[in-house]
């Protein structure tokens, strides 16, 4: 899905970095939006809607519309169309509204209640999908 040669534009890319999406190790360019790296890897479904669980992708790509909210490094509601990719990031599909849990000890208590939505801790991602090694 990457454009290798373009008649008008010269793309200047950062270094290649690895990140983890839903248990899979993927590659992208450092500093590009997470959504661009995912799209280049063929991932279009970024989250599921709160009520009907319908798949959602990005829509505006400039941080306006909140269609692309994902759980990044355990933090929910990250607009991945504008959030820059860095090496070693953990990116998960978000279900519903996401839930911000302040600290790891509290997360253990909150976890059962948060099962429907994306549980999140400051320490790292959870969410029912396998993690990258």
């Amino acid at each position: 899905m990457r454009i290798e040669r373009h008649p008008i534009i010269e793309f200047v890319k950062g270094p290649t970095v690895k990140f983890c999406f839903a248990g899979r190790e993927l590659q992208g360019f450092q500093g590009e939006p997470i959504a661009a790296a995912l799209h280049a890897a063929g991932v279009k479904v970024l989250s599921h809607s709160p009520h009907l669980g319908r798949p959602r992708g990005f829509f505006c790509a400039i941080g306006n519309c909140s269609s692309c909210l994902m759980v990044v490094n355990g933090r929910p509601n990250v607009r991945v169309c504008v959030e820059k990719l860095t090496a070693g990031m953990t990116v998960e599909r978000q279900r519903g509204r996401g839930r911000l849990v302040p600290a790891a000890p509290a997360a253990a208590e909150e976890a059962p209640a948060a099962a429907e939505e994306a549980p999140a801790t400051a320490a790292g991602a959870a969410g029912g999908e396998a993690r990258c090694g």
Partner: protein
Amino acid sequence: MTSDVAVVGAGPAGLCAAIAAAERGARVAVFDRDGPPGGQLIKQTHRFFGSAREQAGTRGIDIARQLGARLGALPAATLFSDTTVLGFYPDRVLLAERDDEIIKCRAERFIFAAGAAERPLAFPGNDLPGIYGAGAVQTLMNVHGVRPGRRVLMVGSGNIGLIVSYQLLQAGVAVTAVVEALPRIGGYLVHAAKIRRAGVPILAAHTVLEAHGTDCLEAATIGCVKDFVPVPGTGRRVECDVMCLAVGLSPLGDLMWEAGCRMVFCPELGGHVAWRDADMQTSVPGVYVAGDAAGIEEASSAMAEGRLAGLASAASLGLIPGDEYRRCRAEVLAELDRLRGGPTAQKVREGLARLSSGPAGGGVSADMDAQVISTQLLETGAPAPEDVARATPPPERLARGPVAVVECFQRIPCDPCAAACKHGAIAPFADINDLPRIDHDACDGCGACISRCPGLAIVVVDESRPDAAVVRLPCEFLPLPRPGDEVSALDREGRPVAAGRVVRVQSGRALDRTAVVWLEVPRGMGMVVRHFIAGAGPAGGPAHE
């Protein structure tokens, strides 16, 4: 921090505002939530229309670089990038956030130039991944270098829909069709012509009725509409994995509402916009607006509005003497009048008239709007024989040797062709909205105008040889053909009409990424062939990848 002028948005309007104010000595702080300055300019790969005296003929991406460099060279200006403005407070303070830190900026004057947001469209399945704003696809493709998919349905034939369709083809993505709910094409017809000759159909009085797919978009049903109501029984399924919505923009007026500016609903300008005086000052003293946030228009108008707001804010701080400011203002207002003077700016003029005291541009009569364009051209983007006849040089001139053919049928604000001609064959424009007037006898067929026309609407035709005709075509696709290549020559609607042979390819710095391909075609086909593909590709396909 404190500042004389705080500018929100580093797009064309905000950058021009900041440059104008800082050049006059104002301390200026510019806030933008994005990284590199330029706003939407950073994805505009096409050359801009407008006046050659301003930025016309320069690609948007290059204008962004130039404006960013000019701002960067001004010690009085500071750009806060990756910084999101959160709110405006009545004690004249802006709050902004960067890297989870809050920046507080107190200023004397504020210029709100936050731009616009793409509108969604209501239809079943419109939330499927694969359905994106057209500008979003432009960002993905032209800023981040990622193709959105394989096959795109474009909804909307305004300039954004037409331009993004062309850019999709340049990126090697097929465009199935462009559908337009109105009975005629909304954007500039030269943009329409570029995708029509590449084989993309434009369907006026059509819209999307439904999107299909389970996890992602797989197909869509399109159908005819009359007065925005679907016509029963006209639905048909088209395969596509991407749908782009190019159905208009809404001004981002949040800060104006928050500041208490008087807002006026002007559907012609995209929705609610701030009332302002001839200095772009809103009903709240010291608060100015510019660009799409002040009403949806072309980027060329946004730049002029920004310059005006920047000058006005500096003048109000006593940094420009009154006489000089009035002279500068008159210049910018005259430029805005020129940009808004043609038939394509009718809606903008109506919207500004509703705002009543804006720089509406005056005295455009119904006569001036009258232009002769065939219904076929307006509905399909392909000129009818009578349109082509008006652009065709006399037979004896065609037979004498190479001559430029200017297929620019619509009055739009654009004039670089006149300056491009070194032989004076293209007359200077009295009004920037005039159609180009070419003296075919004064033209020696040098072809310098081909790559200078922002609409890629000029070709050179040579029907003087007994064995074959030669057509010189602008080409912005890769890979470029090589001399000797056999290609399929296409007409203005992308239909293969003859075998062609490439005899020469001009490229290089002077042509600024618009190559000129010399194509030998059968005699008599010089006024028919307008594009080519290597071999026989599918209509609308990625013809050049």
